[in-house]
């Protein structure tokens, strides 16, 4: 045997050339291609020391694989044959069975040997499985790595028997250490010829390896690395803004989008008539961003400037024709928006209410006109509650008015054209028509928050309308059986429930979720469509909202899985209260008595479950049945602590309450050291179980410690 020679490593360039792939899908496809290739290599034992990088541009997905072994290592394997007794006859000569085993293994019978196994001695053969070359393996796995990419909606470009992909595949490059691989993807044979930019480059470029490919593509108008395109855009945006002393109206999502929309992005500046600045900024920015994908620019004071920055897919606009074209399109779009702004306001916002009758929310839940009435009554209920609790910013009349106006903009031309401006347009019209700021802001904000990073409505009135709207959506949809499943959530109920949680927590609103659900259920029953909600459905809705709350506490606030379970097990109908208990639990958790006590609580729950004792079944402890000092001691410790804990809890001093509970540790430990719970005498035994049940009942109302320290955490 030779010593281990330095293994030969090879490099792969792989590119799938397509007609323009939707910009929003490239980043994910790039990542998937990388994991697909890595996984497939690893399944072939070829992933050691390999670096897989992937890139994409509208017309291509590219993989660069370095440090690949030129050949799989050979593997030595031992193959077991017949047992010794069958393989050799009485005189030790190989039998027919041994000969046929040797033939099957391609070995001479003399090369076979006996191997000791648990079942006795067996005939065996040594086999060397020769590793396949990287070339052979890549030819098999690359088409698969492309085929396994997942797309929201694929197509065929030849016919039913043809390949499926996101857009037609037109060329494939696969070069391993300078040599083209023999493979085909979607019926296209791979080669070493790529294509440049449609207008800036050649449509036939030979490449040798990745660095050659990247260089040649660049001189043919394609920047293949998204990060470099993003940098180029950022630099040019900055340069334009600086030149005019302006700021970019920041939009991270738009930056990503234009990065994947262009193979050779360049930024140009265009202007528009300052007269359009009389339209609200929100509308101007939406028009620029939504349809045209332009960046808006603003002055130092935050006001919009009459310019825009467009990212184009060519290196320059040498005649200014591109700029002129974009300006012309924007002018027409702004003129449309201005027309809508004026036409919509020929009547007042409230005059759109009757038109909402023709806008269906959900067929069984009626129109938006019906929804408005339900939202109004829930918003009134919420603000009345808060007002009665002494919250000074809770205004019933304002909340009612804002709820009445909230959906009116759905019937306006502006929102029909720019649906993403729903709410915002209503708020702008309300303000322009002299509604109080509080009402206008509430209308403007009431779809918020649309995600975890989106702010909640600015004022309490807005929070009331937003909560009412979301409660009505969740309760109504659950009542008619529209329950989110898997990826299907057409009414965005998960987002609505998350919104409810976020508003309550961020604004620290006192609210019983079950009562709020009850109020929404009542609105659904008393207003159109007059549908009932069963108690089981109400429970299901509460569970649904609490699930979102658990998610927020875990993922956003960093609480442990077991901490959230412990607190929720003690009740979470009031989320702000649950949040306080969580904070206290987390704070006290590290103190020395705590974890051991939690272990004891877990033990108690197990004992009770095994004995079939329900906690809080009304049985009382009888001190006369105590036989042992430790149980007397625990009983009195429990009674002392109980009154203390209850008072602390009422005062909202959860941490002190938890500390008082933690103080029980010594008595609990002594009890378990000195007392046999399952005593022979039934009365004594039951009395002991009752004592434990009482302990659990009294001291799990802040958080149920028996949930702590689960496997999830460790």
């Amino acid at each position, binding site marked *: 045997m030779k010593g281990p020679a330095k293994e030969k490593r090879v490099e792969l360039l792989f590119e799938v050339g397509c007609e323009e792939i939707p910009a929003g899908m490239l980043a994910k496809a790039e990542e998937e291609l990388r994991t697909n290739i890595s996984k497939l290599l690893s399944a072939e034992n070829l992933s050691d020391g390999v670096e897989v990088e992937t890139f994409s541009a509208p017309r291509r997905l590219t993989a660069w694989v370095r440090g690949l072994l030129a050949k799989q290592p050979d593997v030595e394997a031992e193959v077991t044959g017949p047992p010794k007794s069958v393989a050799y006859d009485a005189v030790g000569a190989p039998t027919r069975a041994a000969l046929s085993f040797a033939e099957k293994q391609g070995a001479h019978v003399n090369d076979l040997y006996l191997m000791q196994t648990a079942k006795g001695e067996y005939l065996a053969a040594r086999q060397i499985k020769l590793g396949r070359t990287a070339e052979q393996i890549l030819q098999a796995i690359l088409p698969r790595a492309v085929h396994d990419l997942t797309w929201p909606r694929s*197509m065929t470009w*030849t016919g039913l028997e043809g390949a499926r992909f996101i857009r037609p595949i*037109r060329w494939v490059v696969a070069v391993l250490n300078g040599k083209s691989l023999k493979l085909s993807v979607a019926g296209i044979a791979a080669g070493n010829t790529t294509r440049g930019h449609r*207008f800036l480059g050649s449509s036939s470029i030979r490449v040798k390896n990745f660095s050659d490919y990247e260089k040649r593509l660049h001189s043919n108008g394609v920047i293949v690395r998204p990060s470099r395109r993003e940098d180029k855009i950022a630099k040019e945006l900055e340069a334009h803004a600086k030149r005019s002393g302006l700021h970019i109206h920041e939009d991270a999502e738009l930056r990503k989008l234009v990065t994947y*929309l262009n193979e050779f992005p360049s930024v140009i500046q265009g202007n528009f008539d300052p007269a359009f600045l009389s339209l609200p900024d929100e509308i101007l920015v939406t028009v620029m961003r939504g349809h045209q994908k332009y960046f808006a620019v603003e002055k130092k004071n935050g006001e919009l400037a009459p310019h825009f920055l467009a990212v184009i897919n060519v290196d320059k606009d040498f005649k200014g024709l591109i700029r002129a074209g974009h300006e*012309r399109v924007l002018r027409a779009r702004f003129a449309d928006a201005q027309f809508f702004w004026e036409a919509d306001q020929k009547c007042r916002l409230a005059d759109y209410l009757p038109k909402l009758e*023709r806008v*269906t929310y959900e067929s069984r839940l009626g*129109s938006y006109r019906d929804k408005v009435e339900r939202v109004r009554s829930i918003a009134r209920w919420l603000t009345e509650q808060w007002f009665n609790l002494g919250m000074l910013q809770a205004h019933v009349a304002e909340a009612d008015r804002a709820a009445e106006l909230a959906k009116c903009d759905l019937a306006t031309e502006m929102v029909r054209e720019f649906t993403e401006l729903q709410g915002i347009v209503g708020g702008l019209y309300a303000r322009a028509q002299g509604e109080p700021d509080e009402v206008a802001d509430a209308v403007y904000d009431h779809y918020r928050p649309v995600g975890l990073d989106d702010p909640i409505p600015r004022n309490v009135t807005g929070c009331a309308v937003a909560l009412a709207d979301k409660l009505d959506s969740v309760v109504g949809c659950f009542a008619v059986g529209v329950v989110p499943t898997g990826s299907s959530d057409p009414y965005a109920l998960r987002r609505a429930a998350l919104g409810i949680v976020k508003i309550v927590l961020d604004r620290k609103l006192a609210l019983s979720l079950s009562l709020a659900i009850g109020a929404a259920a009542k609105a659904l029953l008393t207003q159109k469509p007059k549908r009932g909600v069963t108690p089981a459905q109400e429970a299901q809705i509460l569970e649904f909202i609490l699930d979102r709350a658990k998610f927020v506490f875990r993922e956003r606030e960093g609480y442990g899985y077991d901490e959230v379970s412990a607190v929720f097990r003690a009740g979470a109908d009031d989320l702000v209260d649950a949040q306080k208990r969580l904070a206290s639990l987390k704070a006290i958790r590290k103190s020395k008595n705590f974890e051991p006590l939690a272990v004891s609580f877990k033990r108690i729950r197990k004992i009770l479950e095994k004995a079939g004792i329900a906690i809080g079944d009304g049985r009382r402890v009888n001190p006369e049945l105590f036989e042992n000092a430790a149980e007397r001691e625990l009983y009195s410790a429990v009674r002392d602590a109980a009154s203390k804990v209850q008072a602390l809890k009422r005062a909202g001093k959860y941490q002190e309450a938890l500390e008082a509970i933690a103080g029980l540790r010594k008595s609990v430990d002594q009890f378990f050291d000195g007392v046999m719970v399952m005593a022979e005498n039934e009365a004594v035994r039951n009395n002991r179980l009752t004592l434990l049940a009482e302990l659990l009942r009294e001291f799990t109302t802040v958080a149920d410690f028996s949930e702590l320290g689960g496997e999830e955490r460790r």
Partner: protein
Amino acid sequence: MKGLTFQDLILKLSQFWVNQGCVLQQPYDIEVGAGTMHPETFLRVLGPEPYRVGYVQPSRRPADGRYGENPNRLYKHSQFQVILKPAPVDIQDLYLKSLGAIGINLKEHDIRFEEDNWESPTLGAWGIGWQILLDGLEITQFTYFQQSGGIDLDPISVELTYGLERICAFLQGVESVYDLRWSADKTYGDIRLREEQQLSEYSFNRSDASAIRAEFELHEKEAKELVDGFKGTAGKERERYPLLAAYDHCLKCSHLFNLMDARGVISTTERAALMGRVRTVACRTAAAYLEQIGGATPRREVRA
């Protein structure tokens, strides 16, 4: 004067696609909302037979009427429609060449293919493709048809729909469609303004909604009866069975639906229901048509 006249634009596009082997067809003589509804698209894409066709199709969209007062929105606009069956591999390049043929220098502009999948819920037709943007202006819809009349297509046809007014306004550098030079001495406004004013007035204010509804029912009924009658025909009777007439009634339904919509007499729920009714008849007609021409039997039911 800058750019092609409206009629020269049509002539140039026609010539270009005729040179690519297209039959030059004429607009359909029943009101349609889009060039796709012309039987030369809707029915021709079915079955295996190769076909190439181009035609202008005036398309009526009553709800888009603006009494001739909006510079860009029209009750009736003109599309140049091209169908290539099967879709050639160099179709994107061919399309770009057609832009060269109408005087657009590709090197001086920013032309891009942006995702835009097309769907016609009343026809049970959909496809995957892009809108073509020329310096930010949508000038063409480019679609690989996947289904028509609810039937999976095989082979795949490509559909190109040029928005003629927009392209022409771009070429001539005018802001309002009514200022377009249609010919050497007539503007688009000279020829079409009165029609825009009157048809907007009709469809928004004066159409008789209940009469239109009744007409819808009549056309739907006749279309259904015709399709129903196809079953059980044979031989020569089957060959000359008037499925094309059934489809005409379908098109009538579609236009009448658009008129009701513009008049504001249908709610969102009813809207979906009416569209579903038109789709059902359109899909059944397509399935029967495919049987009649002896193509493959329909593989899939109507997509909801």
